């Protein structure tokens, strides 16, 4: 698992993908921070993290598109699957590599805190809650992207599918608007990737919200493992 984590993390930087991901993410984020926090002179970071969550829709597919697709294409999956490692270890290694790339961006975001702390008083509790929450959301998104990557040997298809799924999940939140059916609304809330986040961003870290994101990640990692195991039988 560790070997795969290391290789994939390095793989991001031997191709332009890692740099494109970091540059695009930070460019958008910095602009937002400038407009939202500096121009409006606020120390509230909830809105910034809400925005990161939105940017994930477009950036996570860049991270996950090649994780398995590229292995299939180069036939290197044969090396991984005939090595003495369990399939879940391989999946986990790739998942953690993508999460580590996301962490690079998050590390840069610490600079914002330095700037806020220099001019005001960040709410420590809120900041902490937001960091934990954004990791949970990213983990859930990455696991979905990983599953989609394991389904095709074409990186582009895998990226477009991930984008469509993430945007679909985003739109799901608005599909309940105008309906007064409690059951439907409760159901939509329960499966929403985004609405749960609103509680957290206010600094309310409820266990059930965290459990939701972690279970989503776990389920999709499990499904990815099954997809790869199934390939042997086809």
């Amino acid at each position, binding site marked *: 698992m560790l070997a795969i984590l290391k290789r994939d993390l390095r793989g991001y930087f031997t191709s332009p993908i890692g740099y494109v991901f970091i540059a695009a993410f930070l460019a958008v984020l910095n602009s937002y921070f400038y407009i939202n926090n500096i121009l409006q002179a606020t120390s509230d970071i909830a809105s910034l993290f809400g925005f990161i969550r939105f940017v994930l829709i477009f950036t996570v597919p860049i991270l996950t598109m090649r994780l398995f697709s590229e292995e299939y294409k180069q*036939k290197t999956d044969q090396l991984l699957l005939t090595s003495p490692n369990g399939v879940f270890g391989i999946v986990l290694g790739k998942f953690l590599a993508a999460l580590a790339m996301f962490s690079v961006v998050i590390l840069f975001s610490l600079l914002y805190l330095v700037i806020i702390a220099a001019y005001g008083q960040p709410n420590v509790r809120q900041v902490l809650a937001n960091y934990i929450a954004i990791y949970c959301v990213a983990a859930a998104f990455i696991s979905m992207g990983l599953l989609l990557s394991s389904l095709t040997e074409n990186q582009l298809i895998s990226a477009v599918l991930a984008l469509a799924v993430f945007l679909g999940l985003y739109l799901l939140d608005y599909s309940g608007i105008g309906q007064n059916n409690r059951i439907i609304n409760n159901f939509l809330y329960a499966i929403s990737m985004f609405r749960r986040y609103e509680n957290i961003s206010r600094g309310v870290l409820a266990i059930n919200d965290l459990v939701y994101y972690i279970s989503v990640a776990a389920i999709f990692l499990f499904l990815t493992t099954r997809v790869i195991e199934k390939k042997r039988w086809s």
Partner: protein
Amino acid sequence: MIEVSHLTKVYGDKRGITDISFTINEGEIVGFLGPNGAGKTTTMNIITGYLSATSGTAKVGGIDVLEDPIAAKKNIGYLPEHPPLYLDMKVSEYLNFVYELKNADLPSRKNHIAEICELVGIEEVYQRVIKNLSKGYRQRVGLAQALIGNPTVLILDEPTVGLDPRQIVEIRNVIKELGKRRTVILSTHILPEVEAICERVLVINKGVIIADDEPQNLAGKVAGEHKLAVRIAGPKKNVSQLLRSIDGIREVTPLADREKGASDFLVESHPAIDVRKPMFNTLAKAGYPILMMRPHDMSLEDIFISLTEETADPDDLKGVHQ
């Protein structure tokens, strides 16, 4: 070392391999010979745990590949048909990655990798990016990858494909050298390759093993009779009649003439009778000198044709199957 019993693999409604069984002992170099699409790669993929068989079992070192895949895979070094290379990595990075991937734990990683590089001859490209290497070097890096961690069983799928003739000889020597301490299975569709490297050969066609023997015996056994290619200075018709009159010669097939004033024939004789001396005497007496006489090499195609013809008859099957 490797025990395969009753392996069958069905792809959808297509049969990959059917009821394949064989045992390979420790230290043997076994050739897997067959035309493209015969099921060589499928069998190898099942032994290495990349594919699962529809039915039947494969054991490596006594461990069932399906029941305890991690323990079984630790014993295996596999070079697939397409070397599994990460093109964006340097050879050095790649081999170190494979070392970690295989959870190899040898006293010195550095020495181990250096030894392998020397053995397969990739020292000079060690710091280059794999993307920029020629096909021959890529194949060698693939072979190096299989050797990492000192596996006791090596499975090589067409290891010499894409190499130039000099490299082919080199790689064959490397494999022979490796086979002294390891069990090796290699697949090929080139007959001389099997003769050059292997102690034993399994012939596979259309997913079924049709012969299991030493390479030297294979051609003789399959042929069942001796064939000589001869070139004789003299008119085709006369020479042909003369040849037919010799005791022990069963059949004379005219071949395309290659030399002016001489006729080429393929002479099939009874296996128990050596017809070479009578041929010489008869032809010399008649004044038709023999310009050339050599045993007719069985090509892979000939072997397949004759083996598949024989397998059609169940009685003959036993004879070939050992």
